[in-house]
């Protein structure tokens, strides 16, 4: 029995290296990234473009997302039904969406289907149908989804947090897929303009990961954007100004048995030299099961099913966010505890054990992240979108290992500023208001959001 009483000694680690990849610049400006993986049965293809939400005119907020979705609803040659049939007959489910910093169309195909799949993707990107009826349908679905999201306590908290955190005029204040005010006014002409302006080879990266013939892949890439050339205007620079200082915002959701807590401030952008330090810091705070937040709020106090914290480094600074859904009765106690844990991160360096575990976790899971061809194609995306160095993944683990206890302490002190924190929750304001005022976490504001008005009923034809 004694030999099994002690943790076993691990074997010798087997080396893992991020796979080799090549970058090619085509004549028309398209950048092609090839990640050859000869033993795979699937190929993942990701096309990313500078056509995300940050490329929008604020008056057209939501057009990037709608345009991306519209692309899969047909080409000049194939209507929506025909295009769905043509792609799905190959076993493809083409995804097309956008986020703040890019638009992306992607699929995973069995090896034998790669060539016809690339041809269909190219057709979709080069000559999409951009049908008005389909546009109006997707628009109506987006508006309905906004309504649905405001009935969901977590999504409601997420939306309202952005509004509370960022100043008027900052694009990050509204959802990446646009709010109802702007989406309702979008037209098919806006989609056509967005496509014509941003879906250009100079603004695009084609990533292919799996078992494929490189020459055939490059040839297919050449026809991806046809005779177009040039780059779009790219993304606007977002000035991530905070709306104000420390305060408490209660988004009233009567009868809620839980409060969805969001404690946040403006964080860092993707190019910040503190990126790795911030990652290790947020892992210790709320990025592992035995993190400070989860250990205390879940495993000791039983306040929540899970608590987490992290940064969202975009081209400009996305939020630093700590979150948990807690039983309504313990809301104030949970906030108090969460704030105390944030203070604790700032006041002292982490214990050696904590730092070791966070670094071991981030370094150790490295090969697990890249098990799939989709995961590998996804790993190339930040190199393409943020212009990270080609050796980013080769040097990643070294950067994590290099973070010291003092650096975590300093980073927490710099990036978590108590007087900047927005403490927001969606929950039962009637039950919580007085207790929150008494707790004096900050000035308390109560919002009673009206759900968005339903869009006009679909006209059957």
């Amino acid at each position, binding site marked *: 029995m004694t030999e099994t009483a002690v943790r076993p000694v691990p074997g010798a680690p*087997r080396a893992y290296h991020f796979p080799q990849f090549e970058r090619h610049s085509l004549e028309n400006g398209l950048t092609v990234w090839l990640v050859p993986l000869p033993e795979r*049965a*699937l190929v993942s293809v990701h096309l990313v473009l500078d056509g995300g939400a940050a490329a929008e005119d604020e008056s057209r907020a939501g057009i990037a997302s709608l345009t991306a979705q519209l692309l899969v609803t047909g080409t000049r040659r194939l209507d929506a039904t025909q295009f769905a049939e043509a792609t799905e007959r190959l076993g493809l489910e083409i995804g097309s969406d956008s986020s703040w910093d890019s638009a992306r169309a992607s699929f995973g195909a069995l090896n034998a289907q790669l060539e016809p799949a690339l041809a269909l993707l190219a057709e979709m990107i080069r000559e999409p149908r951009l049908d008005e009826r389909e546009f109006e349908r997707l628009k109506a679905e987006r508006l309905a989804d906004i309504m649905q999201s405001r009935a969901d306590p977590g999504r409601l908290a997420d939306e309202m947090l952005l509004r509370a955190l960022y100043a008027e005029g900052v694009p990050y204040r509204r959802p990446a897929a646009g709010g109802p005010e702007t989406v309702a006014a979008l037209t098919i002409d806006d989609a056509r303009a967005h496509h014509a302006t941003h879906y250009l080879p100079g603004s695009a990266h084609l990533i292919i990961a799996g078992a494929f013939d490189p020459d055939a892949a490059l040839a297919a890439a050449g026809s991806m954007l046809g005779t177009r050339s040039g780059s779009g205007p790219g993304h606007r620079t977002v000035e991530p100004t905070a709306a104000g200082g420390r305060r408490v915002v209660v988004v009233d959701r009567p009868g809620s048995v839980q409060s969805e807590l969001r404690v946040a401030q403006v964080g860092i952008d993707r190019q910040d030299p503190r990126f790795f330090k911030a990652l290790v810091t947020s892992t210790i705070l709320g990025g592992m099961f*035995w993190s400070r937040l989860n250990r205390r709020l879940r495993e000791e106090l039983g306040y929540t099913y899970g608590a987490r914290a992290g940064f969202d480094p975009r081209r400009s600074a996305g939020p630093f966010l700590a979150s948990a859904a807690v039983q309504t009765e313990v809301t104030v106690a949970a906030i108090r505890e969460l704030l105390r844990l944030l203070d604790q991160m700032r006041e002292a360096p982490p214990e050696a054990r904590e730092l070791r*575990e966070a670094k*071991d976790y981030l370094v*150790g899971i490295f090969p697990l992240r890249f098990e799939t061809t989709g995961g590998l194609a996804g790993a190339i995306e930040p190199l393409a979108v943020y212009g990270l160095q080609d050796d980013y993944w080769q040097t990643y683990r070294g950067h994590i290992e290099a973070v010291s206890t003092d650096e975590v302490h300093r980073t927490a002190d710099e990036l978590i500023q108590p007087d900047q924190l927005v403490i927001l929750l969606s929950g039962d304001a009637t039950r919580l208001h007085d207790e929150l005022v008494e707790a004096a976490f900050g000035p308390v504001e109560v919002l009673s959001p009206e759900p968005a008005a339903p869009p006009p009923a*679909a006209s059957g034809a």
Partner: protein
Amino acid sequence: MPSVPIERHALPNGLRIVLSQDDRAPIVAVNLWYDVGSRHEKAGKTGFAHLFEHMMFQGSAHVEKGEHMSLVQGAGGTLNASTWLDRTNYFETLPSHELELALWLEADRMASLLPAMTQEKLDNQREVVKNERRWSVDNQPYGDWDERMQALVFPETHPYHHSTIGSMEDLSAASLDDVRSFFATWYAPNNSVLTIAGDFEPAAALVMVERHFGSIPSNPDLPDAPATTIPPRIGDEVRVEVPDRVPLPRIYLAHRAPIFGTDEFDALEVAADLLGLGRASRLYSSLVRGQRLAQDVSVFLFPIIGGASIFALWTTASPGGDAAKLEGALLAEVDRLATDGPSDEELERVRNLHASQIESSLERVAERADRLSMYACLFDEPERLNTEVARYLAVDAGRVQAAMADALRPDNRVVLTYLPMAHETGDAQGEDAA
């Protein structure tokens, strides 16, 4: 066609072992299925199997509370567990040189969970699970759909009547004695399957398994599985409306269906994909794109191993649309497929989509390991992983139609409709409001 290598072994104490080696990446997945789920719960003890799963992470004889998670993550691994109607599974994926850590942790809690169990830990995890219920059910729009659906498809005393998360009252009643007896009854090597998939050396791995699990005693008094026999049809169309704080009506349909593993179940999986997989599917084409009656639609089966499985659909009405019209259109499409059957092109489409999805999921060692455990535990046949795709491809139009005609009938149907509450009166809105 997948061709995953499979080796089967067993220990004298009854532990079944499945090994599937693949050294493409330096990672290994460990997966343990215990043949116990919420269907084994006694009356007044709903949610216990899941609460017990939480207790399994609270330490064991040589492991501290939370240390299982901490050690695996600190070794560069990912992990979780889940409880469902028929089973509970525990799984870790780690860099391959840490295989023995996972085996040691799983064996320590299988052998000696109880010394680490305290009232304080039970009280803590009870609160955590209650919050899980609040988060996923009570505080969510449409949140209790699964609980209601199971209760309508299966009669009150049936093991599948209640949902896995359980009720707040029953969770409050769970005791340390329950933990002890549940462990002693179900958490035995002869009630479990251990799968290792990925980068490892089989002979060395077997030695490790023997070293850590070999001395754990089996339970010779393993109870029989609870009786789940049930008539194949509900015998009625059961209609329930639920006023909820939701902006849009949503309809859930459920039918009793032949159990997971039967030819009819396979045919109904094809039917579900024909109806709802992809944008060229019948329901998406007709309800979402064509008539714009729905925001979304989803069709799926509960892979239940006893009594009956469930063939389920749900769809959210478009704003301004009405639930009755959507229901009518939905049922018309289902009937049309049952009557006319799919075309060759449609069958080719779903077959290729299915094959792609299987290949995609098998890229992950954790997924491979879990499916191997599933087939070993439920069928004593891990090799079914390699014949999944062939079984799907073998389903022809005739089998689809026959299976649909048998199961998707009005006298075997639950219709559960969520309707937006009016703000002022709290009454349900919608066409069917009295």
